[in-house]
């Protein structure tokens, strides 16, 4: 097709992979922390971006807005867990999933009512610039920052899970909550923390996408697509999140290039269906995760 198509695909995939890494971590952290699945994760992504935008557009310093957005969304996620998910402990897992589906259904129209259905172009106080990399790859500064934020966040989560006391406790709690609590681990607090971290990841992803593209409730759909990299990598695997993100981003990029953006998205859903059929626990996940 196009002669210079491949560099574009690579450039696009790098940025998309950065976003997907964050979104996939949003899904994986929930499973890692509480063995749960929050269908409202996509909506949290859009909401996080809107909250950050609302703060920044009121004259607050950009970095402070991002930080405040992360804090607010962490609080909201923690409250969601304590308020509507925690009371369902002991009931079938079905219930918690359905509640999160209900939340997802509520949040999209709520955002439409508050901020309107028209996409917002976010004017950030920085100038975007373009970098020409070898092999004809062209990346924008915002794209590079997005990919970098994804990478750094992933690295921080990896270190946190592996080397900090709370991270290890989180892994223990997800492995066996009852046993963990008997060993004195504050399971409930750990779960809240997991939900908060997940919200932080998707808020960063939403903010980045809102700045690169535009801010609309439709960001939630990208968040939902983030199930694909999470599942391909393995829903309980932090390492899998980054690998899955790259694979999915490249496939989506190629399908978008040689087909249409819609084909790209449907391709991602097809990946999900294939993963579920062939290897439900993904590339790096543990088989137990699929038996939740």
């Amino acid at each position, binding site marked *: 097709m196009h002669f210079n198509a491949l560099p574009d695909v690579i450039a696009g995939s790098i940025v998309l992979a950065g976003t997907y890494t964050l979104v996939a971590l949003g899904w994986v952290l929930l499973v890692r922390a509480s063995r749960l699945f929050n269908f409202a994760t996509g909506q949290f992504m859009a909401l996080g971006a809107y909250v950050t935008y609302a703060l920044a557009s009121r004259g607050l310093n950009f970095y402070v807005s991002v930080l405040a957005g992360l804090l607010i969304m962490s609080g909201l996620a923690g409250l969601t867990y304590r308020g509507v998910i925690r009371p369902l402990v002991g009931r079938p897992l079905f219930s918690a999933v359905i509640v999160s589906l209900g939340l997802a*259904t509520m949040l999209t129209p709520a955002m439409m009512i508050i901020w309107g259905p028209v996409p917002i172009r976010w004017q950030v106080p920085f100038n975007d610039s373009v970098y020409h990399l070898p092999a004809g790859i062209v990346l924008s500064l915002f794209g590079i920052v997005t990919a970098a934020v994804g990478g750094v966040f992933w690295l921080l989560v990896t270190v946190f899970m592996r080397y900090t006391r709370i991270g290890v406790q989180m892994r223990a709690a997800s492995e066996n909550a009852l046993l963990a609590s008997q060993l004195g681990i504050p399971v409930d607090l750990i779960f809240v923390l997991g939900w908060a971290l997940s919200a932080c990841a998707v808020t960063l992803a939403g903010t980045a996408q809102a700045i690169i593209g535009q801010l609309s409730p439709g960001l939630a759909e990208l968040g939902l697509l983030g199930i694909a990299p999470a599942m391909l990598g393995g829903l309980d695997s932090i390492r899998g999140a980054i690998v899955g993100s790259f694979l999915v981003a490249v496939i989506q990029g190629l399908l978008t290039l040689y087909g249409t953006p819609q084909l790209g998205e449907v391709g991602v*859903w097809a990946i999900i269906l294939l993963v*579920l059929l062939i290897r439900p626990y993904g590339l790096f996940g543990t088989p137990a995760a699929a038996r939740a």
Partner: protein
Amino acid sequence: VNGVEVAPIAGATRRRPKVRWRRWTAILVAIAVLAAAPYIAPLRLVTVLDLVALATIGAVALNVLSGVAGQVSIGNAAFMAVGAFTTVLVVDYAHLPVFVAPIAAALAGGVVGVIVGLPALRIKGWYLGVSTLAAQFIVVYIAQQWQIKTVGPAGFQLPIPLDLTGADLTKLWYWLFVPPAILCVIAMRNLLRTQLGRQWSMIRVHDDAAALLGVNVARSKLTAFTLSSMVIAVQGCLYAYYVGVVTADLFTFNLAVSYVAMIIVGGEGSAIGSVLGAAFVTAIPFAVDQAVGLFPQAPTALLSDVFSIQLLLFGLLIVAFVLFEPRGLVGIGDRTVRWWRSRGRA
């Protein structure tokens, strides 16, 4: 020993005719009311009843799969689309007689149901919900592409082969939708008492234990998926005729969620609950319209948000019912009846 055994049976046989008589009266009255409804009730109400009956078919099918067999599904819209577009294929393209359409829809729905249900053999719970979600986006995409390449945004015309308009049409829908809906409700009630129904319940409660007790879990799950998607596809066929113009964007994710709302609000695993849920959820848009109509001076922003408000209510209902009334409207009904009886006793 003999006397002890005989006594309650004798009592039961003595009481039975009375109960049976009461029950038959109730059934006859119900049939009479249902048969008279389209001729007595105001047209607007009959329209709502049509929609409730249509929704009931899908709600029952989802309730068997999710509420009874415990397999999470957000795939109603996808299976409806399969049924609707199969109908288009059969009637508009193959030019086969109308009665072939629901049969073909059921077959196509069954095939897609098996594909979507296959992951259920290896995975559980919310993983499965994701698989039906994937089906939703894939099916709608294929339908969209087909539509773009053939008829475009105008959609596929699907006229009914009868010369009816207005009130007569509303009555026709009533007779086309209500009997299958009642059939579905009765079939679900009866299914629950069969071996298959009990196997499904067991799989929902504990599928490892079910397997241990000799239930062929894989086969039962696939049967549930196939049966459910076949019924939903037939519903999609009826829906296609009802709307008259089939487009891919009729079958949204929100439509699928509204069916989840129906079984949660009505009562998981309950046949009557499916009807109550279908009625409740179907009535919401009408209620919101009425409520907004009460405020003629309402800001235009509010009027344009009617759809958002409906969605917001769907979500709110799902959350509220799961948290506070997991047995749904059926649970509320049961409790009200018990309260009424205990009040009479005291």
